[in-house]
């Protein structure tokens, strides 16, 4: 029996950090050494994550008190991780970063989408983009993984089989995501104040959402592509539903689409093709994947127009953040990919 992998979580008071704590406390091959929060330093982690009462006695430590460990999960705000990365690399031989700092391979793309130059562009190439279904082989030998964005994960997993097969027109894909409030993090703003937020269907990023950069990077397959992406927040706490409108290069039958998706995801443990004619839930539904690491993908073809509508649903804090990061952790250490991620969700 190998010794457990000792991990620490940087920026553990946020929602993604809380989910990592929940998952890692139950993981049979991991031990949590430290969880940092500058705001809640010295307080029990259950102050931020009350669902973990009686599951742990861990208290938050300061970033400056971090000690060496086997792997660091970093959940700092975008832009902070890259500043601390020199020290993180000294503290741990492996890092899984949940921020956006190392998701893009190209420094020019980073500057274009994030509006400032990357401070450590030389390290971008060292990070494996964190969707295991696309980069499983690289992850097994990786020291650094950059966990993918939640909206990007839902969209990429929905579209990946079509772009890989080269059946989608490269310039004509339109994606709209409906997202829950937890995507905004655990710090309140005037806009998240309950009387302002409740009941809203809020178009918060109709164009120029940064996650589009990840979609273009991962779906290009050597071609110049465009993904026209918009995001709307709705009355939901957890979850992403991505609806993509894809225009096909040539006419395909529904069975052809099935074959493409079955070829990509038939053996994937966390991606399910959901398209039923007479089910209570005929297409992917965020409610059914809440708390799980699943991504449900479905589609419907309008043969007359050649428009293929692809729906994909995830829990933004799980497959879109902590769950996917743990999936990468498992791959990096040779554990079964599903370890600690077996929860099947709730119904109803």
């Amino acid at each position, binding site marked *: 029996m190998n010794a457990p992998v000792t991990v620490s979580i940087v920026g553990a008071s946020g929602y993604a950090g809380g989910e990592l704590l929940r998952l890692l406390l139950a993981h049979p091959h991991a031990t949590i050494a430290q969880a940092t929060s500058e705001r809640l330093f010295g307080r029990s982690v259950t102050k931020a994550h009350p669902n973990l009462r009686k599951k742990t006695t861990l208290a938050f430590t300061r970033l400056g008190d971090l000690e060496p460990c086997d792997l660091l999960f970093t959940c700092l705000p975008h832009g902070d991780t890259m500043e601390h990365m020199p020290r993180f690399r000294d503290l741990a031989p492996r890092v899984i970063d949940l921020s956006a700092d190392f998701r893009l391979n190209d420094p020019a793309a980073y500057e274009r989408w994030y509006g400032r130059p990357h401070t450590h562009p030389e390290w971008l190439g060292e990070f494996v983009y964190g969707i295991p279904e696309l980069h499983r082989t690289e992850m097994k030998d990786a020291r650094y993984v950059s966990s993918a964005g939640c909206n990007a994960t839902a969209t990429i997993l929905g579209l990946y089989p079509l772009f890989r097969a080269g059946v989608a027109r490269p310039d004509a894909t339109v994606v709209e995501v409906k997202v829950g409030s937890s995507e905004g993090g655990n710090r309140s703003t005037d806009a998240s104040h309950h009387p302002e937020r409740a009941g809203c269907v809020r178009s918060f990023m109709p164009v120029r959402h940064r996650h589009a950069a990840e979609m273009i990077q991962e779906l290009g397959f050597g071609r110049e592509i465009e993904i026209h992406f918009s995001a709307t927040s709705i009355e939901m706490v957890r979850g992403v539903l991505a609806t993509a409108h894809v225009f096909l290069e040539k006419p395909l039958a529904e069975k052809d689409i099935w074959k493409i998706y079955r070829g990509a995801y038939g053996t994937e443990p966390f991606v399910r093709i959901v*398209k039923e*004619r*007479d089910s209570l839930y005929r297409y992917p539904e965020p409610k059914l994947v809440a708390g799980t690491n699943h991504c449900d993908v479905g589609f419907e073809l309008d043969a007359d127009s050649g428009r293929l509508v692809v729906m994909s649903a995830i829990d933004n804090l799980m497959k879109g953040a902590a769950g996917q990061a743990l999936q990468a952790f498992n791959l990096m250490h040779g554990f079964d990919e599903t370890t600690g991620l077996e929860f099947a969700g709730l119904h109803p």
Partner: protein
Amino acid sequence: MSAAECPICGAELTLGDDLVAGELLECADCGTELEVESTEPVVVSEAPTEQEDWGE
């Protein structure tokens, strides 16, 4: 053991030897309820269902 293809999604259906005409099956991939029309040769088709309007 005989095989057939789901007429809706193209999934391979593995069928038992005791298949009888009129039997109802469910495709494991797309969940469609299928009816065995004949056994020699094996022919399956989508079973008739009462459609819901789903508010449309």
